[in-house]
């Protein structure tokens, strides 16, 4: 009897909490189908969370007229996925070297990498703008390649600065450490090189960690806003979050903002749901050591 009560109580708690976490986002989604007048009219009542009144897709069509949303989405998908893929390779390689191999200076390198977590991006964005503009760039000019200087207004300036990531390295490091080292020794006995161990043994065992890092790299890449505004001038190269500010001109369209916000959130949600199981379990199997 008590256990039944307990379970019911637990379930009730879970449901109430689910409401707390979901309602503001339900408000966003529901509002995206309402007119601005109705959004404001419903603000003070539960109708704000309900699909009531004259619902339409007007905000969505209006939004697509105002912002080249399809282009922005495509850019963000491209930028985020390349950042994720490169990030997984680069950071897992470094983490592998740091966690499973013995070499002088590795503790120092790990310490410095983790110290970099502390500096917020906003504080060094401007020097970075100046700096990326001093870097050499190989570009296609007609039928031959040529070297120029400066990375402004490219895809790569939105990708490369965010590939190496201290958090990802740390995460992979913890995960790799939990994989028994005896596997490496056995492989070396069989004549395998370190890269083979990385590719054939450690990476195949780390699927869940890869999924975790994928989502955690994807989120900031998808949400980047200040950086692209500073280094990208062509509209054709802009990512989705910049689009939000298109609506804060004269005559702010709140319904359109809700529609746009829903549109850019849904793909990330879908990604999370797809990865959900391995995401949760992966951290479990790292055993996160302090």
């Amino acid at each position, binding site marked *: 009897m008590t256990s039944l009560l307990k379970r019911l109580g637990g379930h009730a708690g879970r449901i109430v909490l689910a409401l707390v976490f979901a309602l503001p986002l339900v408000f966003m989604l529901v509002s995206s189908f309402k007119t601005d007048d109705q959004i404001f009219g419903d*603000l003070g009542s539960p109708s704000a969370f309900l699909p009531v009144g004259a619902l339409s897709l007007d905000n969505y069509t209006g939004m697509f007229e105002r912002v080249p949303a399809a282009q922005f989405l495509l850019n963000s998908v491209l930028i985020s996925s390349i950042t994720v893929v490169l990030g997984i390779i680069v950071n897992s390689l470094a983490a592998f070297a740091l966690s499973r191999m013995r070499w002088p200076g590795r503790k120092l390198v790990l310490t410095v990498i983790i110290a970099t977590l502390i500096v917020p991006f906003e504080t060094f964005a401007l020097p970075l703008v100046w700096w990326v503009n001093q870097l050499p760039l190989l570009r296609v000019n007609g039928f031959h390649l040529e070297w120029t200087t400066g990375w402004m207004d490219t895809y790569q300036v939105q990708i490369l600065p965010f590939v190496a990531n201290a958090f990802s390295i740390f995460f992979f490091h913890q995960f790799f450490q939990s994989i028994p080292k005896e596997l490496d020794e056995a492989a070396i006995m069989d004549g395998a090189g370190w890269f083979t161990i990385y590719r054939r043994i450690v990476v195949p065992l780390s699927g869940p960690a890869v999924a975790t890092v994928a989502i955690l790299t994807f989120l900031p890449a998808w949400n980047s806003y200040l950086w692209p505004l500073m280094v990208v001038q062509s509209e054709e190269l802009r990512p989705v979050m910049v689009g939000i500010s298109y609506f804060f001109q004269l005559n702010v369209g709140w319904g359109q903002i809700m529609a746009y916000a829903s549109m850019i959130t849904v793909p990330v949600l879908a990604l999370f749901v797809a990865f959900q199981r391995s995401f949760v379990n992966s951290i479990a199997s790292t055993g996160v050591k302090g």
Partner: protein
Amino acid sequence: MTTKIAALERLCPVRRTRTTNARRRQSLTALGMATPAVVLLIVFLVVPVVLAFALAFTDARLISPTPARFVGLRNFTQLFEDPVFYKSLRNTAYFAAVVVPLQAGLALALALLVNAKVRGVNFFRTVYFLPVVTSMVVVSLLWTFLYRKDGLVNHVISTLTLGHVQGPDWLGDPATAMPAIILMSVWQGVGFHMVIWLAGLQTIPVELYEAAELDGATTWHRFRHVTWPGLRATRTFVLVTITIAAFSLFTQIRVMTQGGPLDSTTTVVYQAVRTGYDQQQTAYAATVSLVFFVLVLTVSLVQRFLTREKD
């Protein structure tokens, strides 16, 4: 292991050079593997950060007809006399002091709640994680709506108390603005740390719980003597990640309050951005950032020292 190798080496001395060679090769391979990440971090993080910090000793401006000049510690003197800087420090410390235990504790409670083996638990995990995958800018915009005097938060409060309590203008009152931002920030970030705790919970061997059950331990005892000690490693991780995130509080402030009312929500990073971009005082903003970096580093080291593993 080492003794075994030593014994082998004693038996066949030829192996020795081979081992040294293997060591050297291992070092080279490792360096090769770490190089891409290290180079990228140096180019895109260390260089600009050092550049930014160097500006703290100059009179650099965002827009200026003349190049920056070295001015020594002038910016630091100015900073230490700036009342807004101390308010920013205090607010940042206040935010961190509340958010770190609150978010960590709440996340643990959520994790315990969804660690149960019941149907639909994956659904709840996903819902609790929803705000994490939503951009902070979008979340801040939404909550600005919800926090209005005639907004939904107050509507809910009024309904729950049968109209006895009228909520305040959350973001417009110096007394409630920071608590409101704390609440929203925890709401947004708690799902992430729930997942981390959950991971920690799942590493605790089931046998320990079974043994406790046999001893007739209560729920509280099981938590106190099995769960809590089993989460020791996870605790450090959660603590440090929330602390770093809390010290960087910025986006919410920028979108929701711009540091007001009456400086009640200004934070160090917000001040750096306001002075650096809006007020064009690049060098001063660099000074704020540099001092902030040193402070966070100190706190991290102290935290690290206090939670060090005693081995």
